């Protein structure tokens, strides 16, 4: 970024430059903007000035950081297309974890010796990195959990059981992952609340065009829990607009966003989206397993009781009672996943060094290429939006004959793809109600990360053709 506001030297330079009549808009953009700035106008952010470029990501260089990508599967080079399940890890993340264990392994927030100090610093630095990465504002609003599922359960237990009463309504969508559905089913059953669902249309997008969204909200609505990006369809939901609409309708409805599939693939600013709760997980974003994140508004974190209780989450304890630690530690009972948090910090550094805009652009290009390549495969039907601007690189599909009847069971299909080294997920994709809605028992699903290439998409389509040959569909 440029240095702004300009130094005295810079100011006098621009003053001298523009002592003569001011440049017009016809002057080159840069000269005009420097002139505006010299007159006290704010410069727009740099990225808005530069012309839009195709991504110039050096994917081969990016791939070199992932040791596993050198592996072979059944004698063929690994083509890893199951990133929505979990991403691969760069050597920087693996090293950060082994450095912790080899050089400064100690418990955090305990004692004063050198090792615990280093471990605590690294653990809390990871929290700051994560907070910056998703623009959470304050690192104290970042609670480390085991995964997104635990983050959502934390809300269901610590906030839900206190605030959702008999007859209240929880609004979900038809495209929720089981992790953002089952905790609410449990809560609703326990307190006698009701679940409602925003339906999807035939493109796999939420039916929320005005005034539809209004129809799902009632005076009894207490919570809206909605995914940012569908793990099955890849659909990117306009969560910012949805939240602002709901808050306009009634500001005390709380909104939880499941960002498990969004944070690894899109630039995410939580402060801009403005949810009450936002959950995501480390292992889908180049980080290790066993570390997830819950963001929550400060006043909610203060008002909520702890979820799990025990060590580290208390300030004072006597035989009869205890007082809670400050946020965020009030919600982190027991020794946390220190290595996991440090690994997630390294993952965030890695993604930031590539740039989330670049990640998104690369994956968008790849998605567009894959949608094109897959739609050329005869008998293949794709679910979800056709427009790569409306989805991330998650594409579910089936090999179907006439009338959508599945011709190769997805389980068989991915077994054959596996023989070609192409690793693809199949099954109910942790979203059974959504698959039922799509009229599919199960589906195959590919999903990209920043290290995937068009060449790998070609290997996928070749492997699909091979499967069709085995099943005598060609």
């Amino acid at each position, binding site marked *: 970024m440029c240095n702004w506001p300009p130094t005295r030297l810079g100011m006098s330079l621009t003053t001298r430059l523009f002592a003569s009549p001011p440049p017009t808009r016809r002057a080159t953009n840069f000269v005009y903007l420097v002139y505006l700035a010299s007159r006290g106008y704010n410069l727009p952010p740099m990225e808005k000035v530069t012309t839009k470029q195709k991504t110039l990501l050096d994917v081969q260089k990016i791939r070199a950081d992932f040791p596993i990508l050198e592996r072979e599967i*059944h004698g063929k080079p690994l083509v890893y297309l199951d990133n929505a399940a979990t991403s691969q890890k760069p050597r920087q993340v693996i090293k950060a974890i082994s450095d912790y264990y080899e050089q400064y392994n100690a418990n955090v927030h305990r004692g004063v010796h050198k090792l615990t100090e280093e471990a605590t610093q690294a653990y809390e630095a990871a929290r700051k990195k994560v907070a910056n990465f998703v623009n959470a504002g304050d690192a104290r609003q970042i609670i480390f959990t085991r995964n997104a599922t635990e983050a959502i359960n934390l809300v269901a237990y610590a906030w839900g059981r206190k605030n959702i009463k008999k007859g209240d309504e929880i609004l979900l969508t038809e495209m929720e992952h089981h992790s953002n559905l089952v905790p609410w089913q449990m809560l609703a059953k326990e307190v006698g609340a009701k679940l409602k669902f925003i339906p999807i249309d035939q493109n796999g997008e939420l039916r929320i065009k005005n005034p539809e969204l209004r129809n799902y909200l009632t005076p009894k609505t207490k919570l809206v829990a909605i995914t940012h990006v569908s793990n099955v369809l890849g659909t990117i939901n306009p969560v910012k607009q949805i939240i602002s609409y709901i808050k306009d309708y009634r500001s005390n409805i709380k909104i939880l966003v499941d960002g498990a599939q969004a944070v690894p693939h899109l630039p995410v600013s939580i402060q801009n989206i403005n949810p009450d709760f936002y959950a995501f997980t480390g292992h889908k974003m180049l980080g290790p397993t066993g570390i997830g994140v819950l963001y929550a508004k400060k006043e909610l974190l203060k008002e909520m009781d702890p979820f799990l209780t025990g060590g580290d989450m208390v300030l004072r304890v006597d035989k009869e009672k205890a007082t809670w630690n400050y946020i965020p530690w009030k919600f982190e009972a027991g020794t946390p996943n220190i290595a996991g948090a440090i690994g997630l910090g390294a993952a965030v550094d890695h993604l930031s060094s590539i740039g989330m805009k670049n990640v998104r652009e690369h994956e968008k290009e790849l998605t567009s290429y894959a949608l094109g390549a897959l739609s050329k495969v005869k008998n293949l039907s794709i679910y979800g939006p056709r427009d790569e601007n409306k989805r991330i690189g998650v594409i579910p599909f089936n090999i179907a004959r006439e009338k959508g009847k599945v011709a190769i*069971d*997805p*389980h*068989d299909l991915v*077994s*054959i793809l*596996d*023989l070609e080294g192409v690793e693809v997920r*199949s*099954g*109910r994709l942790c979203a059974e109600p959504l*698959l039922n809605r799509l009229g599919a*028992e*199960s589906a195959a699903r590919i999903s990209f990360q920043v290290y995937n290439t068009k060449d790998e998409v070609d290997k996928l389509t070749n492997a699909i053709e091979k499967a069709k040959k*085995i*099943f*005598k569909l060609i």
Partner: protein
Amino acid sequence: MIEDQLYRETLLEIYKNPKNRGEIASPDIEARLDNPLCGDEVRIQLKIQNPKSKIQRAVFSGNGCVISQASASLLAGYLEGKTLDEAKKLKSDDILKIIGINPSPARLGCALLSLNVLKEALFNGVQSKSR
């Protein structure tokens, strides 16, 4: 390669034109299970001939992958003429022998789904007559 056996001609043939697929109007024993991982489902129905507790007829229905459906078809064929006691003694290895493949751990569940359904039917199954 082991996995290549999964898609041998014979299994594919059974999958496409399965024997013993169908329904018994009033079965003596039946059970249904599905594999939550993949969505495969298999139902097995048995008609028992007393007094020797012989399986007079066994049929399967359901849907899913080649392995789960072909193994259900082969198992149903195997069961006909066996006694309930013989059926109760069937083990995983027996099924793999009947279908003639040795699937990877990930696909073992598909191959054994029909055996699990059979066990469910024999030990906890709905006794249709008492319904």
